[in-house]
């Protein structure tokens, strides 16, 4: 099956202190219809920037993209004008964000914000749009859609707002949904409900989802594939089960080690923290960017850019280590 989204060799630079700083370097990944891709990494690894680059919503506009391509359903999105992108955004490519408290316009009712999107993209009348908006709210399991529609955002709880956001995002049946840490700001119980909603959308209408998170636990529940980012580079991509069980990149391995695990004896003896810091993108780097923090770093890691190795089953890793870290000796 042809992928709904094909990002290849994407590079992005944003203006920094000392001129343009590379934020994303040679990012490639793809997403099939009905697939959920988990995009993970520490804060500052470029997850959100990748999402914005797909939707052409980068702070500097299209100029920020310095190379590579973003193919959506076979159509090239880089280089499209703001006007052309408007027909994609909200209709084919929808987004939801981390902060449900600030993502809805405080001076408009939920109804106004939902119907505007529906009317613009589906060319419906106001009446039809209102009916559709109420339907969408029902789909995200809001019990009293009519009442919610007439609410202002400040009258709703965080979980409710995120549901409304999802309803807006799904209202034009997008083929791609980018969810940028949608559950981070929510209570754990609400988190589970939101994840369930996303799963439902994916199964029912075949929407492809990019799920951005730093929480490997959530990602492992939800995603069929995982892409691990580090400092604006793609460290590893592959099927979720493989990446989680047999990580190929030392960074993935370290991330997994940093997840707190609960066993019958309580918290695992000690939480593992990755030493060092994510490098500053405005400073020029050579070699593998993870090398300064990597326990397996070799001389070559500090001078050359690591090649992409195929571990089979569409599992790729960008590392010099033969066959990935878990096949050699890992952190144990």
């Amino acid at each position, binding site marked *: 099956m042809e992928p709904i989204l094909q990002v290849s060799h994407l590079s992005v630079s944003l203006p920094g202190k000392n001129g343009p700083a590379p934020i994303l370097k040679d990012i490639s990944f793809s997403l099939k219809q009905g697939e959920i891709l988990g995009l993970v990494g520490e804060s500052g690894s470029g997850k959100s920037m990748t999402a914005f680059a797909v939707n052409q*919503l980068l702070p500097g506009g299209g100029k920020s993209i310095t190379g590579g391509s973003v193919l959506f359903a076979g159509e090239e999105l880089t280089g499209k004008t703001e006007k052309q992108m408007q027909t994609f955004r909200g209709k084919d490519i929808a987004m939801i964000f981390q902060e449900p408290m600030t993502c809805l316009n*405080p*001076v408009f009712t939920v109804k106004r914000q939902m119907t505007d999107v529906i009317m613009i993209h589906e060319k419906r009348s106001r009446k039809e749009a209102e009916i559709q908006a109420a339907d969408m709210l029902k789909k995200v399991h809001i019990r009293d859609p009519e009442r919610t529609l007439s609410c202002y955002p400040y009258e709703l709880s965080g979980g409710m707002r995120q549901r409304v956001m999802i309803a807006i995002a799904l209202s034009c049946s997008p083929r791609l949904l980018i969810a940028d840490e949608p559950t981070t700001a929510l209570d754990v119980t609400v988190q589970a409900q939101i994840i369930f909603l996303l799963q439902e959308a994916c199964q029912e209408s075949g929407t492809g989802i990019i799920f951005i998170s730093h929480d490997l636990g959530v990602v492992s529940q939800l995603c069929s594939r995982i892409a691990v980012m580090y400092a604006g580079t793609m460290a590893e991509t592959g099927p979720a089960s493989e990446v989680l069980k047999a990580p190929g990149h030392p960074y993935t391995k370290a991330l997994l080690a940093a997840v707190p695990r609960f066993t019958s004896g309580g918290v695992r003896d000690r939480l593992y923290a990755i030493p060092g810091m994510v490098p500053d993108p405005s400073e020029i780097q050579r070699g593998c960017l993870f090398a300064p923090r990597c326990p397996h770093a070799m001389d070559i890691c500090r001078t050359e850019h690591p090649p992409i190795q195929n571990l089979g089953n569409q599992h790729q890793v960008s590392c010099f280590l033969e066959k990935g870290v878990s096949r050699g000796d890992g952190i144990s």
Partner: protein
Amino acid sequence: MFSFQFIWKRLVHLILVFLGVSIVTFSISHVIPGDPARMLVGPHATQETLEATRIQLGLDQPVLVQYEKYMTDLAHGNLGTSIRTQRPVSSELARSFPATLELTLAAMLMAIVFGVILGVAAAVHRDRWIDHASRIISLIGVSTPLFWSGIIALIVFYKMIPIFPASGRLDTFLSPPPDITGMYIIDGLLAGDMDVVLSAIHHLLLPAFCLAYVQMAIVARQVRSSMIDVLEQDYIRTAKSCGIPRHMLIYRYALKNALLPTVTVTGLTIGELLGGAIITETIFAWPGMGKYVMDSISFLDFPAIMGFTLVVSFSYVLINMAVDILYSFLNPQIREVDES
């Protein structure tokens, strides 16, 4: 939409403010002057008139009694007798009120419309030429004395490029429209007399713009900074990610939020406009309350000055309350907090 409680609260507040204003004006006319009666009748009044006024004001009685008398007079709309014209101040002010209303309303409209346009343009094109231009326009606006810019406007647009008249509200060969609101443009429209309407607009434009300029500058700065703030908010990014077209994003999604802090500035704006009207009306010979008070000043016509102060301040308070209610209309959150 508004609960009984909401209106009740506003009314109580309004009455309190009116009381405060009357206490201040009472102090100015009865407590500050060495001889209030002499101030009110003028230097040329006879001894009998002076004595009669002393008794009428109750100057021999305690201050509270004097205040009570003062308030009784106010409640009856009695603002005293003008020293200059020997006619009731209230009727003179009533006659000139519509002209001032027309001028300040026009100025307010200009200040808000141009100020918002300029502010939005500056925010959307931040750090580009239009932003710098708007900054310079604003800086000049807040630093220019109103009486000077009015005179310069006359020199430029009356003497050098004669496109605007120098004085009055209508061309002299036209007779004023039938008096309904007292505002010539509206009355002219009601009477269907387009000659009057056009002439009235022609006479109004220059004084209204001079009066509006400073406030326009202030509104533009306010709109610019709140617009920049709003455009960086998450909900604007959300709307963008939903494919909301740019013009709708700026003029509806962002502007409504950016106007909220601007509305509160508008209240202050009106006070400045009412004060500025004294100067603008004088320079453009606009027959409103401002010119009336200016004419009174040269005669030290104290009752006229105090009457003007009262009417303007009461209007100011009323307009501010209207702005307050408008604000709660625009901001749903305030309405909720206020009602609970």
